C-alpha cells in the first residue's frame, strides 16, 4: 500500500521539476544552476520510483539507481569544469559570461 497515490506523486514531481527548471533559468551562478539541475533529475527519479510502485515493477528502482549515478557523474563533471575555469584565472561564476568558448 503506497503512501502516496500516483496522482499525488505526479503532482509532487512536476512541482519539484518546475522548481528546478525555474532555478536553472533564473540563477546566473553556475553552482546554483548545477544544484537546480540535480533537483530536476531527482524529480524524474522520484517519478520513476512512484511509477514502479504503482505497477509493482522493480525497474523503476533500477532506473532510480541509474539516475542517481548519472546525477553524481554530472555534478562532478560540472564542478570539475567550474574548478578548471577557476584554475585558468576566471574570477566569476556567472554563466552568461562564458559564451565565448575561449579558455
Amino acid at each position: 500500500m503506497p503512501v502516496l497515490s500516483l496522482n499525488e506523486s505526479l503532482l509532487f514531481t512536476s512541482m519539484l521539476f518546475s522548481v528546478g527548471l525555474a532555478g536553472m533559468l533564473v540563477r546566473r551562478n553556475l553552482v546554483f544552476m548545477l544544484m537546480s539541475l540535480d533537483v530536476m533529475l531527482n524529480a524524474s527519479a522520484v517519478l520513476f520510483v512512484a511509477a514502479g510502485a504503482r505497477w509493482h515493477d522493480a525497474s523503476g528502482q533500477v532506473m532510480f539507481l541509474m539516475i542517481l549515478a548519472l546525477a553524481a557523474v554530472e555534478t562532478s563533471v560540472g564542478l570539475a569544469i567550474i574548478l578548471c575555469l577557476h584554475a585558468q584565472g576566471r574570477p566569476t561564476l556567472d554563466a552568461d559570461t562564458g559564451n565565448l568558448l575561449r579558455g
Partner: protein
Amino acid sequence: MMSLLLPLAVLCPLAASIIVFLSAGRLSARAVGGVACGGVGLAALSAIMLATGLLAGPPGGVVHAQLWEWVRVSGFSADIVFTLDRISMVMILVVTVVGLLIHVYAARYMADDPGIARFFGCMTLFVAAMLVLVLASDLLCLFIGWEGVGLCSYLLIGFWHDDPANTAAARKAFFMTRIGDTALLCGLLLLATQAGSLRIEPILAATMAGLVPSFTLIAAASFVLVGALAKSAQIPFQTWLPDAMAGPTPTSALIHAATMVTAGIYLIARLHVLFAAAPVVMAVMAVTGALTLLVAACTALVQSDLKRILAWSTISQLGYMFLALGCGAWQAALFHLMTHACFKALLFLAAGAIIMRLGHEQDIFRMGGLRRTMPGLGVAFVAGASALAGLPVVTAGFYSKEMILAGVWGSRFMTPLSAHVLWATGLLGAFLTALYIFRCVFIVFAGEGKGAVSGGTPRLMAVPLACLTFLALFGGIIEMPDVIAPVHLFTALLSPSGHPSPMHEPGWTVLAGAIVPLAGLAVAWVLWGRTPAVMREMPQQAAIIRLARPGHGMDVLYDHIFVQPLRLLVWLTRRDVPDRLVAQAGWLTRSASIALAKTRKDILDTVARRTAIMTAEGSLLLGWMQNGRVRWYAGWVAGGLCVALAVVMLS
C-alpha cells in the same frame, strides 16, 4: 652403370657451365678454359665409354635412363628420359669429341677476351643442350635441347655485343630458328594429340602400324620438316647462317660443325619412319635439299669473306644431307654429318687461326701466298678443303658423298620426280663445291704474299687442328662403295640387324663421283691457281654477282617483304587502340559535363542567388539564437518541451 653414365654425360658440361657462370670475374681465363674443357672432356670420355659399352652389348640394344616424369595429366604424359641407341651414339661421339677439340682451341683463342667466362659458359651450355637434344627419347625433352641450342647460339653470335650488327645477326638467327621451332612445336602438339605421349618409340610404332591417319601424318611431318629446315638453315630459312659468322670463330665452328645445324638432320633421321610414311614430304625435302645445295654453292662461289664462304658451304653440305634424307638414305646423311663435322670444324678452326694471325683480316682478296708463311695451317686447311670437295679415296668427304649419291641414285619416288635428276644435281653440287673451296684455297695460299703475318699458331690451337686433320682425311674409311671395297661398318653400326645396304649402283656412277671433284679442282686451278691468274679480282660489275653477294638477294627480299613492313606496321600500331578509345571517351565525358554545367549555370544562378540570400538571413537569426548562454539554452529546452506537450495535449 650405363644408365648412370648417360645423365652424367649431359651433367658434366652443364655443371661446367654453371661453375663458369657463377664464378664470372673470379677465375682466371686459364682456369675458365680448363673448367670448360674439363666438363666437355668428361662428357667425351663418358660418351666413349657408353659407345664401347653399347657396341659390346647385343645388336639393337639401347641404354635407357628414366630420370623423372615431366608431366602426367589425363590424356598426356611426358618424361625426362634419355635413350642411347646407335643413332644417338654416333651423334654424342661427334658432339663431344669435336666439341672438345673446339673447346681446347677456344681456350687459347679467347684467352685475352674479357668476357671469356660468359663465352665458355655459353659454349658448355651449348654442348649440354645439344646432348640433351641428341639423347632425349621424348620429343618434349628433345625440344628443351632444341631451343636451348637456339638460345646459346643467340648468346654466342651476339657475343661481342658492342657492335649492333652482331646483336642484330644474333637476333636474326634466333627469330628464324624460332619460326621453325614454333612449327616444330605445332608438329609436336599434333603428334601428342594423336598419341597421348611424345615418346619417340611409341609414336614410330604407331606410325608403322598404320594407326595414324595419313593426313595427320603428312601434317605432322611437314611441321617437323619446317622446324628442321629452319634449324639447319635450308631454303627458305638459309639467311641466318651466314650472318651467324658475327660470333667468335670457335662459336662458328661449334654451330656449323658439331651442333645446332645438324640438329635438323638428326631429328629427321631419328623420325625417318614417320617421314617414310609421308612420301610427299620426303619429295619436298629432297627437292629443297637439292635446291639449297646448288644455290648455296653458287653463292659461296662469289663470296669474298673467308668465313662466309665456309658458312655458305655449310648450308650447301646440309643440303646434301637433306637430299639424302629426302631419298630415304638417312644412314648416308648421318655419315656425311659425321665427316662434315670433322672437316668443317677443321676448316673453321684453321680459318680462325689464319684470321687471327693476319690481324682480323677476313677478306680473301687481301690474303695470298700464305703457303709460305704458315705452312702448317695451309696443310690443315687444304686437308679440310679436299675433304669438303670430296677428292677421291684419300679424304673422308669422298666416302660420305659417294654414299649419299648412291642412295639418291637408288631411291624410288612415286611422284614423277626422277631420282636421276636429283643425282645429277648432287653431282653438279659436288663440282661446284670443289670449285668454290679450291678457289678460296688458291686465292689464300697461292700467289704473292700480301699483308703482314704475326706470331705463330699456339700449340693449344695446333693440337686440335692436327686431330681434326687426321679425322678429316681418314674418318671415312669405315664405309666404302662396293666398287672399291665392301666395307660397310657404318651402315652395320646403324642397322645391325638389317640388310647390309644393298645399294647397287653402276660402277660408272662411282667413277663420276670421283672425277667430278677433280674436275672442279682443275677448273679452279685454271681460273685462280696459275700465277698470272685468269680471275684475280672479283668482277664487281656483273649484276648477277652483285645480287648474289649478300646471299642471293634473299636477305634483301626478306627485308623488303617481311621485316620492313612488319616494322612499319608495328610502329603504326604502337598506340594501344582500346587505350586511346578509353582516353577519348574520358575526355569526351569530361568536356560534355563541363558544357552541361555551363548551360545549367545560367538557370540555376538566379535560384542559387536567392537561396543564398535567404540562407544568409536565416543564418543570422539562428546565430542570434546560438548565443552561448546556458540559461538561454535551458529556456529554449523548456519552451520546446511546453510546445511539444501542448501539441500532444491539443491533438
